[in-house]
């Protein structure tokens, strides 16, 4: 389980490899907060390599969305597989986030 942070133009892209769960959510949170502190304002979290998100993982995304927004930034999500999309829809978090089918779609929407 890892988080790979890269920059694509002025967008900070975080690839979530494996799972986003209670055991690693703090790591993701800190990485994003570090980038926010460094001046990043556009964030894309790419779940192409993610098989599972638990309720804690959903919660950290909610928290990050709020923090990024408070700094005048924007968070987008991309590449949720069917299972992950189901979790977002059940919890109605699909109404809270900008969710793109692909990284390309997310990047072009910034």
């Amino acid at each position, binding site marked *: 389980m890892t988080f790979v942070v890269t920059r694509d133009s002025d967008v900070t892209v975080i690839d979530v490899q494996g799972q986003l*769960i*209670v*055991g690693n959510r703090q790591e993701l949170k800190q990485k994003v907060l570090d980038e926010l502190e460094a001046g990043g304002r556009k964030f894309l979290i790419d779940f192409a390599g993610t098989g*599972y998100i*638990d*309720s*804690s993982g*959903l*919660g*950290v995304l*909610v*928290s990050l969305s*709020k923090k990024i927004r408070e700094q005048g930034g924007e968070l987008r999500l991309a590449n949720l597989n069917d*299972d992950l999309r*189901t*979790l977002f829809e*059940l*919890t*109605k*978090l699909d*109404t*809270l986030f900008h969710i793109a089918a692909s990284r390309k779609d997310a990047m072009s929407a910034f």
Partner: protein
Amino acid sequence: MQPNYVIELPNDLCAIEEPVAYLIHRASEAGFDENRLRLNLRVGLSEALTNAILYGNCRDPRKRVRIEAQVGPGEVTVRVTDEGHGFDPCCLDDPTEPDNRRRERGRGIFLIRQMMDYVEFNDTGNSVTMVLLNPAPVENGATT
């Protein structure tokens, strides 16, 4: 319930993944629908274990969590019990209400109830029994 699997875990979040994967594998071997195992059972059981470790046992490393499971081609029943004082599962906010969606916490039990076909807490609130039904049971892994 007459469990055919009983697993005792240390009170450690890192201990969750192995028994979840094990029971999913056992149910798959019994002919249970793999899609429902991959999502529904995984979510239901993982969330129940996380709650038991963090909230039921209050992260106390001296405490343990018990899983009792009955696995069959038509039904998987899992009971998760912690050593805590319990809680009242009736007094929980709906995380999908507009005012609650921006909360960081409060989705675990909601997801258990969404993913599992039957969920019941004991009177104390330190044990939850969850049932997942297989819509199209397959005996001994044979395909239909």
